């Protein structure tokens, strides 16, 4: 068992923190870490991450974890990934999915769409890793970690608007 993230602790130790709707609880259990963590290794899901340099990193992920959890727990070396700890304040966990997998990923919230708008070069199959839960059907999928930022140390970057 890995330690629970601070957020989940909030809800375990002080359940009445939840004063609202049953629906909200539904959304929570649908999206986040809802499965038991004590799974045998054969229940794990193989996921390939292609990093920003094009290198492939293969991991065994636990169903129910978010892809951000996977990156953190497996210590994948992706600089700046998941800066806001999955609280939908940034888009640094931007991932690009294969089209077939993308279709199976489930609904996207307005807040996630707003954050994707602010990601660096989003595509039609982009999602935020913190919002995607690992599922058995994703066995063997490949996700691309796109560039997150232009290199501001290069002098030609950022000149796009300097003509005005």
């Amino acid at each position, binding site marked *: 068992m890995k330690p629970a993230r601070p957020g989940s602790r*909030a809800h375990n130790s002080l359940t009445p923190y939840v*004063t609202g*709707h049953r629906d909200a609880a539904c*959304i929570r259990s649908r*999206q986040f870490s809802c499965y038991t963590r004590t799974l045998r290794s054969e229940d794990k899901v193989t996921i390939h991450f292609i990093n920003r340099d094009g290198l492939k990193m293969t991991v065994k992920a636990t169903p129910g974890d978010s892809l951000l959890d996977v990156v953190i727990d497996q210590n994948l070396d992706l600089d700046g990934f998941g*800066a806001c700890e999955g609280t939908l304040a940034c888009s640094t966990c931007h991932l690009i999915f294969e089209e077939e997998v993308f279709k199976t990923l489930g609904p996207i919230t307005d807040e996630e769409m707003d954050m994707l708008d602010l990601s660096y070069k989003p595509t039609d199959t982009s999602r935020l890793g913190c919002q995607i839960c690992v599922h058995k059907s994703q066995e063997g999928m490949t996700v691309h970690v796109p560039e997150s930022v232009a290199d501001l140390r290069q*002098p030609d970057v950022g000149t796009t*608007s*300097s003509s005005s």
Partner: protein
Amino acid sequence: MALVKKMLHLYLRRLSEKAENRRSLLRAAAFHKHSAGQPPPAAEENALPENRVPSAAATGRDTPAKTLNEMPGPNTISNIIEFFYRDGFSRIHEIQQQHSKKYGRIFKSRFGPQLVVSIADRDMVAEVLRAEGVAPQRANMESWKEYRDMRGRSTGLISAEGEDWMKMRSVLRQLIMRPRDVAVFSDDINAVVADLVTRVCQLRRKQPDGLTVLNVNDLFFKYAMEGVSVIMYEQRLGCLEERIPQQSLEYIAALHLMFSSFKTSMYAGAIPVWLRPFIPKPWREFCHSWDGLFKFSQIHVDRKLSEIRARLAAGEEVKGGMLTYLLVTKEMTVEEIYANMTEMLLAGVDTTSFTLSWSIYLLALHPQVQQRIYEEVERTLRPGQVPVSEDIPRMPLIRGLVKETLRLFPVLPGNGRITQKDLVVGGYLIPAGTQLALCHYSTSLDEENFPGATEFQPERWVRKDATDRVDNFGSIPFGYGIRSCIGRRIAELEMHLALTQLIQNFRIQVSPLTQVVRPKTHGLLTPGAPINVQFVDRL
């Protein structure tokens, strides 16, 4: 925990990378003024030698980055006249626009000893924010820190920097940043909205026409204060009652003092300590208003703390919300909790109320737009149904209304960043330690970013489908990234729920008493005159 460790690891690695990058820049540029380990000084472009820019050969590009010396901008004298003589402080948002038209989308200005590089370009703003590290710095918070040191107080999320900030942010964002965590506050907020609607009816009865609410911001101020405190202190304050409790009145007075003295307290930080005996007022007022704010938070935090202790002593289960969680888990010290409650309350009241006031004003000015939003609400909710967070996604125009209001009247017309590494932006090399001003007011009213920029069009934010992307770095009223507004989701919920119910219940009309209301900068972008509106019953 793993995440925090990872962040720290990345932070340390970035520091070493930073040093490495700097070394290569140094080699290329022959030398550089500041070193990575030291707190960066205010950038002094005039003091820097001419040959400090990386040569084209060193960077492998044909066009070398230009120095800050070459960056256009108003001179110091004209800035002094503009701001001190012509009271430019209340027109900062307009000056921002004028200067960017005159000097380009990146320009420099001087405010006394402080050099500021203003960026009024959507793409450059995006580049700067995407490049930021794990503990971005907004501005020099020395005067805030000085007050806290003097009184033995902790810093909070606004005033803290570096690791202190990272630690507190990490705790607080887990409680109030995820939309689904905030959604559970719908019922609490709706209880406040119900009081707001009742209060509208009470207030309009006092006017001869039986319809007008005078200075609607005063009402929204109390709504926002009630909303924030029901979430943060887990307690109602009675701000929307006919007779407001004395304690809440005192707090409202402290907040008003904070804002009315904002201009002078801005000088409080700018006036050197040795000058204070000669110009004592700004610093005195600054301290006085902070005293009031801290006192209020402390009363409420202490009350909750003794409640918890009493329950524990009686062997009862402790249940509660955000404050209870913080007090029970002790992830932050009590002083840190006081400071954060104080700073979050300060940040979460007038920001929300101004935005609600502008929204209502815009709805009143645009009856056809209001009608379309009303029809959407009617289509989505049953008659008299009280909306909750889960209903909002089905009313894209309500979200569009808030976004469009904040585009036209970004409550923070500009945001600050102090660069933590050397950046090339807009073709200029900006050394680490430079104060940047991100000009949100200019970018959100830029015709290139938003066609028909001065028009009120909530529809522009409605997506055709989930892959319909809006490149909206032009309007980021809550900021972006790790140091963006922590109260964003709470504020959105408060505004969505209040606006939906107001639109549901009333047709909102401009009162003949209201002249054209223009924005004014007073720390924040505020309505320059009272907004008086008529609330006519729908039915």
